[in-house]
């Protein structure tokens, strides 16, 4: 009985509490977004890009506004969602906003964060959309050595711009989940990032 009550309590527990808020080394902060309304409640939310402990990836920390109060609440940390070469001085990381396929558009539609990571070897941009279960990947743009791959999971299209202005389409496959290092296996074979040897 006690075990059932414990499991029920776990099932009802909020996703994250104040005690779960991660401590961040300020020197590992890469970028932030503080104007977007990810959960479509009219109040800005917040997202931080942080260099992962390993240095080869970017973690994102998400805060969403509480319904009613407008107070920001820590929701989750998603690990290794973008590649990185940290702390080399050549890496560039940013968050911007974008949208696609919406008419009319909600605030959440036009507040889709585009996470970008540029290094000497490759670049990857990932467009996300917040859902009840967490972040969903809605698009990706990868490039390496003058070879660019543009995927729109909402439209189920993928295009490759290769050398000498050669463009062709490929099957994007199903939208990958935002799991750690998803880009290694989650992108179509032609779009994967293979660092220079």
């Amino acid at each position: 009985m006690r075990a059932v009550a414990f499991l029920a309590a776990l099932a009802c527990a909020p996703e994250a509490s104040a005690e779960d808020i991660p401590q961040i080394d300020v020197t590992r902060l890469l970028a932030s977004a503080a104007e977007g309304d990810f959960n479509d409640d009219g109040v800005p939310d917040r997202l931080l890009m942080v260099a992962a402990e390993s240095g080869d990836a970017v973690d994102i920390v998400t805060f969403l506004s509480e319904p009613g109060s407008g107070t920001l609440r820590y929701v989750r940390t998603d690990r290794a969602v973008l590649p990185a070469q940290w702390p080399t001085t050549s890496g560039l990381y940013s968050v911007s906003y974008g949208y696609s396929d919406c008419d009319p558009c909600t605030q959440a539609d036009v507040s889709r964060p585009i996470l970008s990571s540029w290094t000497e070897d490759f670049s990857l941009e990932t467009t996300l959309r917040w859902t009840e279960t967490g972040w969903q990947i809605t698009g990706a743009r990868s490039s390496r050595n003058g070879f660019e791959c543009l995927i729109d999971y909402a439209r189920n299209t993928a295009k490759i711009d290769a050398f000498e202005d050669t463009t062709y389409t490929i099957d994007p496959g199903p939208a990958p989940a935002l799991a750690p290092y998803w880009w290694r296996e989650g992108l179509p074979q032609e779009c994967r990032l293979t660092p220079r040897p």
Partner: protein
Amino acid sequence: MRRSFLAAILLAPATALADAPPVTIPADRVLGVHGKNVYSENDWNGDGHGDLAVLVLSETRDAVGLYLMTSTPETGVLAVTEYASALLPYDAARVAAGDLSYSFTISDEDYEPLIQMRSAATGLSLSLSTNPGSEAPVVFSIRTSRQVPLESGHRMDPVCEIFFVELLGNGPQTAKVHLPDGNTLDYDPGPGPRLTDWHYTDLPAPCLP
């Protein structure tokens, strides 16, 4: 405790900065990050490598502070060089109510960090600039203006114009505060206060949104 720790960092030789213990804060204290970007606008110390500024809530969560960091060119590793703990006031209730908002951008004039605080209720908007490339960064200027709605669009009326450092197009240190009673207060603000010494209570009350 923190002050002595930071003082130790600031007094340490440059080679020791990379070995300094990390400065960690709860993630919910981070308000904004101005990191490396494609235009290298944040290479404030001019060594060819991007630096970093992070806007934070103070430990007491009633003020907005700023961390400045510079990178070691050989490794890209960053180290905290400045921490200003009370640049502007922070009122969580007004933020949650949608009145106060803060943003962190770069100045169009010199690409240096610009901290902005706006009040939807009063229409006041404040900008605070600094000079992170200096060995001893100061508060450069503080400008507050009020948005006045017009039949078509709006206009921005100056409320406070405080220049601690002579800027292009402005005279030497000047301060002008347009008081609510219609009078104007002019005074010499003195030299730019060190960022780490500045406290927002040093600002005349009408200047705060």
